[in-house]
């Protein structure tokens, strides 16, 4: 099947649109979740959505998507609320609260799931797809629901942009300005629950957390402002989603949800490694450069001190002497200095015995060494 034919395939088109919507909403809302250090809240809520899915199914008696998602939203948000109450009113720490809420509600969900499977209801087929997602089952009507939820979330985020920004950065200051911080936090949390609901069918409750966290983490590496981060997270989410969907369509039989997560996660890997200013590689290069600079500065100041000690500005230092002083080979550092015109490689005057070549500071070398030593003195002060 060629890529063009892919786009005309009804199922694949549905899956791709669904994945794009999921990437959009989870990228935007995930940014706020990650910045508010609530990445795991998404995980808790997605696991807590499972009992809601089952209860929704039991009430509807069939695979009625609207009711199932409503159930998922209710229990997901309820779990977040329980978590909030637990940590506010008891001495439980947030991580423990998240852990307890997550596992309890997921256990409840699995129990309900097996209960439904034992009811021998023919309509229950595929309910366990909510565990790991079953993108191929996405219907056009599901897309309308997902699109509607995404639209609501985007409108809210753009309307309350500055409030959400301030609450994420400095909630105390926001409260001192009179912003209803608690309500804004509740809205943000409920919207993350909405994103979870959107993703349930695509990637399932187990992997949904990655969809919330990954695009935001990747985008954070490349962006300097919240605006840029949110937009980039949306782009990464959408393209990762579509890429995963297309990949699974091309490879026939590989699960869509996990492929979406994997493609988004690979963006995270690349970003953690390469992002300018924040990536590992960049960090490593900076460290290496700093070390090299330190080394040649040390050699330069040694030459300067030797010259001062001998009261001879053109004092000639032998290579062996410098190596011994520093305890390692200084030739590379000296070559660096030579390239910058700070030292010269001069041969001994003909009347001197030995006659080996020596290193001598140039005038600029003198000035540079003085500057380095002066700035060192200032820092110590």
């Amino acid at each position, binding site marked *: 099947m060629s890529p063009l034919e892919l786009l005309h395939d009804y199922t694949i088109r549905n899956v791709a649109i669904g994945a794009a919507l999921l990437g959009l909403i989870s990228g935007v809302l995930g940014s706020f979740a990650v*910045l508010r*250090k609530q990445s795991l809240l998404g995980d808790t809520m997605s696991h807590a959505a499972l009992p809601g899915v089952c209860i929704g199914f039991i009430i509807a008696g069939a695979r009625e998507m609207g009711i199932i998602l409503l159930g998922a939203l209710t229990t997901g948000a309820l779990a977040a609320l329980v978590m909030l109450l637990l940590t506010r009113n008891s*001495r439980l720490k947030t991580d423990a609260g998240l852990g307890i809420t997550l596992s309890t509600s997921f256990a409840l969900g699995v129990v309900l799931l097996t209960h439904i499977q034992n009811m021998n209801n023919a309509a229950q087929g595929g309910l366990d797809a909510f565990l790991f997602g079953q993108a191929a089952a996405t219907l056009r009507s599901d897309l309308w629901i997902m699109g509607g939820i995404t639209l609501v979330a985007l409108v809210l985020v753009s*309307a309350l*942009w*500055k*409030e959400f*920004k*301030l609450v*994420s*950065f*400095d909630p*105390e*200051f*926001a*409260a*001192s*300005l*009179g*912003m209803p911080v608690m309500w804004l936090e509740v809205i943000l949390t409920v919207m993350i629950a909405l994103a979870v609901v959107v993703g349930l069918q695509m990637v399932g409750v187990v992997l949904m957390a990655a969809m919330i966290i990954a695009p935001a983490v990747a985008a*954070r590496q490349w*962006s*300097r*402002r*919240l605006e*840029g*981060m949110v937009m980039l997270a949306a782009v990464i989410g959408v393209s990762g989603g579509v890429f995963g969907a297309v990949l699974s369509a091309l490879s026939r039989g590989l699960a869509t949800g996990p492929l979406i997560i994997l493609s988004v996660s690979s963006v995270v890997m690349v970003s953690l490694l390469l992002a300018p200013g924040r990536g590992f590689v960049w960090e490593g290069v900076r460290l290496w450069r700093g070390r090299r600079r330190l080394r040649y500065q040390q050699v330069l100041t040694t030459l300067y001190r030797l010259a001062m000690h001998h009261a001879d500005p053109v004092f000639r230092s032998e290579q062996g002497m410098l190596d011994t002083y520093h305890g390692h080979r200084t030739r590379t550092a000296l070559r660096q200095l030579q390239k910058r015109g700070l030292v010269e490689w001069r041969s001994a005057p003909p009347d001197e015995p030995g006659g080996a070549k020596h290193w001598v500071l140039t005038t600029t070398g003198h000035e540079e060494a003085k500057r380095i030593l002066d700035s060192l003195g200032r820092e110590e002060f």
Partner: protein
Amino acid sequence: MTTPLHEPDLALHVEDLTVSYHSKPVLWDIDFDVPPGVMAAIVGPNGAGKSTLIKSVLGLVPSVAGHVTLFGRPYRSRRRRVGYVPQRSSVDWDFPTTALDVVTMGLYGRLGWLKRPGRGERREAMQALEMVGMQDFADRQISQLSGGQQQRVFLARALVQQADVYFLDEPMAGVDATTERAIVDILRRLRDDGKTVIVVHHDLQTVRSYFDWLLILNIRVIAQGHVEDVYTAENLRRAYGGQIALLDEAAFMPADKTAET
């Protein structure tokens, strides 16, 4: 119909304020008054409730008893006249934003719902950055600023609020000497313009040279009033207990005999 003002001549009036955490008192029966136009310090040992006092005045921490008024009205109706500088460590400085953007946040309260900060707001924020000497760092990522620079940005965010009463929580903690002097200069200028400045302060040595009003706190009020009346060895000993031995005896000599900065 307007309700009569309660203690309208005081910039800040705190009466019978009690705050508790897990049924343990953090602040007990605080009566605290600050007249307008002074620079007041709140000092006390660790855990004395200094930050909590500021936060409960601003309604950030619920109180179990007591009331607070600013120029005769409760805080709710006086928000626009109050500027606040939280502790620098209370936020994540790795947040993706610029110095100018943080200062602009000081105007969000005035802007109201749905409105975005525009060119006018950015100009005001820029002016505040100039006041703290940070105009060259306006577009800098806040994560790349030094501690002292971050503190100046926070101060600029409060300046842009154009308030009458400023609350600052440990603005001199962990900043270099230059920044400390710059901050003190700005606060003095505010006071000279008739504003009231209330600062949680941790350095007893500088209390007398920086401030003219003082509250010594240790869960209860130990003493309050003009610095020269309140800053006594006896009061400090009552607040700090044994820790007072760490203090230099010279610190209690009359102000004119010690070198002033």
